């Protein structure tokens, strides 16, 4: 894009290097960001994107390299220095303090006197300017995810940053909210001549919203270009360092237009599901109701999954998926309704009843509920089947290692040692640990909640392969996902959830983006 190159360089990073122990997170990274452009930063998990930004914000001490801001070399030792210089960042996690009010969060990190009325006025003013309305006196814990994102943006924009950094800002947003965000960003660069760094995994977003892209791979800059001069496929290839061939995976990355997604389901999957259609369902949920404080989180939810079938549960985050996940993990008891596995009604009041009946779960938040970061790879691989390595109450280290070794080989888990803590593995390998463990119990039903969330292309590809393989071996897979393309690529049928209800179940052949969109919006189609 011609415009971008004419603009002055706002920020220039040269030779930034950061080493964590033996991991070179950033290896002599050069990055130039111009005013008036949205600069996409792309890379697999662990490519070093977040580390680079943390160095830039003074949250991490770099080992080498220089930072130039408007042509002048600068030292940034803490986020306040960064802020004072005009760098603002919207973090994906942990950046709002819930019991505090909007205005208090917004002024946090400033210096000087605290002036409430001025802060409130500013919040309203910034909100008006960018179309981000919010009540400054609300407490954060009363806000929705989208509103919180608004507060984050206001907090940054209020400080009039010349460089605005957003780390995966859309992962909690609805499609409409994402579009709204991008239009704000566009205004910010075009009308106010700021620079924006947008970190994302979604190729579609990067291609649609950015002016230039830098791709990081294993801590090094692999590729940089003007967005207009590249394609999503090319970016994906640069990111992983090889061709991404499977159509399904390309679809998941947002490379394929949604309209064509309806026919993206592979013949393999369709035939598999056809073969098992007349068997009794492996999982049947009937009229499940979960309430919290009188508000139904799940409302008369019914759903079946046949053996060997992958059923997608599609919907915008926060419509009851998490609650359903908790019900199926045995953590929450429905106030009415039944869960049947293999034709038998499960007594949910008995602990581990679901697990015994043959239900495996890949939970949504890996670190939170998938792995124990400080336990070893071997321990994480066996903890669900720990009974198999136990005799007389004692755990056999030998048996544990044998099982773990088999799984690690089978699932291609890359680790320095089976005794290394899971913390030391990359995200994709951690997810493989979870999947291996869940499938090692030979479940008849597998619930996979956002199984590719935060994974890079290579890992996603691998995950899809394994889910398919599981299905073809007769496991009933319920794929909970917020990514339309993912659902379309993998599933034979899609159930749409909205406000805790199933608003419709479509076979993949009938599913079009329009129909699904209406169902997601809660309108039966």
């Amino acid at each position: 894009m011609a415009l971008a190159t004419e603009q002055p360089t706002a920020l220039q990073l040269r030779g930034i290097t950061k080493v964590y122990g033996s991991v070179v997170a950033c290896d002599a990274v050069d990055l130039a960001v111009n005013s008036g452009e949205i600069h996409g930063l792309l890379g697999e998990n662990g490519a070093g994107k977040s580390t680079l930004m943390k160095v830039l914000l003074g949250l991490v001490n770099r080992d080498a390299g220089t930072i130039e801001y408007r042509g002048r070399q600068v030292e940034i030792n803490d986020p306040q220095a960064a802020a004072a210089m005009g760098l603002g960042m919207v973090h994906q996690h942990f950046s709002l303090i819930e019991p505090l009010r909007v205005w208090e969060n917004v002024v946090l990190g400033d210096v000087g006197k605290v002036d409430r009325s001025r802060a409130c006025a500013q919040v309203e003013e910034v909100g008006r300017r960018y179309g981000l309305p919010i009540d400054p006196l609300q407490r954060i814990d009363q806000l929705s995810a989208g509103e919180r994102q608004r507060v984050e943006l206001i907090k940054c924009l209020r400080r009039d940053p010349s460089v605005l950094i957003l780390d995966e800002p859309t992962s909690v947003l609805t499609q409409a909210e994402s579009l709204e965000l991008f239009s704000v960003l566009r205004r910010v660069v075009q009308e106010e001549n700021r620079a924006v760094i947008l970190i994302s995994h979604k190729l579609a977003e990067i291609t649609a919203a950015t002016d230039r892209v830098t791709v990081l791979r294993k801590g090094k800059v692999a590729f940089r270009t003007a967005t207009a001069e590249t394609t999503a496929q090319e970016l994906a290839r640069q990111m992983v360092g090889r061709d991404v061939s499977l159509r399904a995976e390309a679809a998941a990355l947002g490379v394929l237009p949604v309209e064509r997604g309806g026919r993206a389901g592979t013949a393999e999957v369709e035939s598999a599901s056809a073969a098992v259609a007349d068997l009794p369902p492996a999982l049947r949920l009937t009229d499940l109701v979960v309430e919290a404080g009188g508000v139904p989180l799940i409302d008369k939810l019914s759903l079946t999954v046949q053996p060997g079938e992958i059923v997608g549960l599609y919907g915008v985050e926060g419509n009851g998926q998490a609650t359903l996940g908790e019900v199926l993990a045995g953590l929450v008891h429905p106030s009415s309704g039944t869960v049947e596995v293999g034709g038998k009604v499960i007594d949910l009041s008995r602990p581990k009843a679901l697990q015994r009946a043959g239900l495996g779960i890949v939970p949504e938040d890996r670190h939170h509920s998938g792995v124990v970061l400080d336990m070893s790879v071997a321990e994480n691989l066996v903890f669900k089947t720990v009974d198999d390595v136990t005799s007389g109450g004692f755990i056999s280290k030998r048996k544990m290692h044998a099982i773990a070794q088999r799984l690690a080989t089978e699932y291609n888990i890359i680790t320095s040692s089976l005794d290394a803590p899971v913390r030391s593995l990359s995200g994709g390998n951690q997810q493989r640990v979870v999947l291996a463990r869940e499938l090692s119990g030979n479940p008849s039903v597998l619930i996979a909640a956002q199984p590719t969330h935060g994974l890079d292309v290579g890992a996603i590809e691998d995950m899809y392969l394994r889910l398919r393989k599981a299905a073809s071996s007769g496991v009933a897979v319920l794929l909970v996902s917020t990514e339309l393309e993912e659902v379309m690529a993998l599933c034979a049928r899609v159930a749409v959830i909205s406000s805790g209800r199933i608003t419709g179940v479509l076979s993949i052949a009938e599913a079009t983006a329009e129909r699904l969109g209406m169902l997601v919006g809660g309108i039966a189609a």
Partner: protein
Amino acid sequence: MSAVTDVETILSSGVRLTVPLAFAACGEYLAERAGTLNISVEAMMLGGAFTSIAAASATGSATIGLLAGIAVGFVIAVVHANLSHRAEINTFVVGLALNALVLGLTSYLIATSSFVSHQVSQINIPGLRDIPMIGPALFVERWPVYLLIGIIPLTWWLIERSRWGLELRAVGENPQAADVTGIHVNKRRRQALMWCGLLSGLGGAYLAVGEVGSFNQNMTAGRGYIVIAAVIFGAWRLGRSMLGCALFGLADAMRLALPALGVTLNDEFLIAVPYLLALLAMLLFATQHRQPRALAQPFERGST
């Protein structure tokens, strides 16, 4: 005796028993809002009490004693803060060790040296002191008592209105978020703890050089723990915490005055009352408490 005098007696005694608790509770409140459940407040008070008498004895000035007591509370806090919010050693380990250390050290020093009694002077506020019931309680006191008039609003202002206090609350609620916002989490926690040290030192010093005029072994006799109970009783609100101190102080005053009025109650039960009340308050008003979410959770960069 008239009922008025009885009330006056109990009230003024209650005030005197409350004041050392209130000073320290302001400090403990600050520390807890920043996320530190500080159990070394007992050490800070006892250290402050001992030093105030030692320094007053050496210099002949009770006021210097008071200042020295504050300083020692501060020093203990600096040690605690650096060990637990810089070197990241479990705060309870540090707290327990400091409590044992200060009790041992003051007992040791009092056994190897001798000190002269000293007491700060009393201020009577003419006119006001003649108000029946509350007059003698509130307007005939040793001068440091009147510091509370400044310290309680100051504590409130620091927490609720100052930037420092806003950051302190942020650090106590969500240290990870505070960190990325550019707040030096452990620095703020250290600072809050240091305030706690200053105020607890003052509480202890007031007890020795203000209230009693001398020091004896283990003089604070567990007041630090009562202070913790008061802050919990107060559900992490300053006003209610102060109310807790007053309640515990008054309960003690009643316990000590009632026999003189011809009533006897079970001593053991009455001594246990503050702890029971704190626990009961947590149980009964479970939904209302505003416990800082990161209370007693250490912060380490990059741990999440």
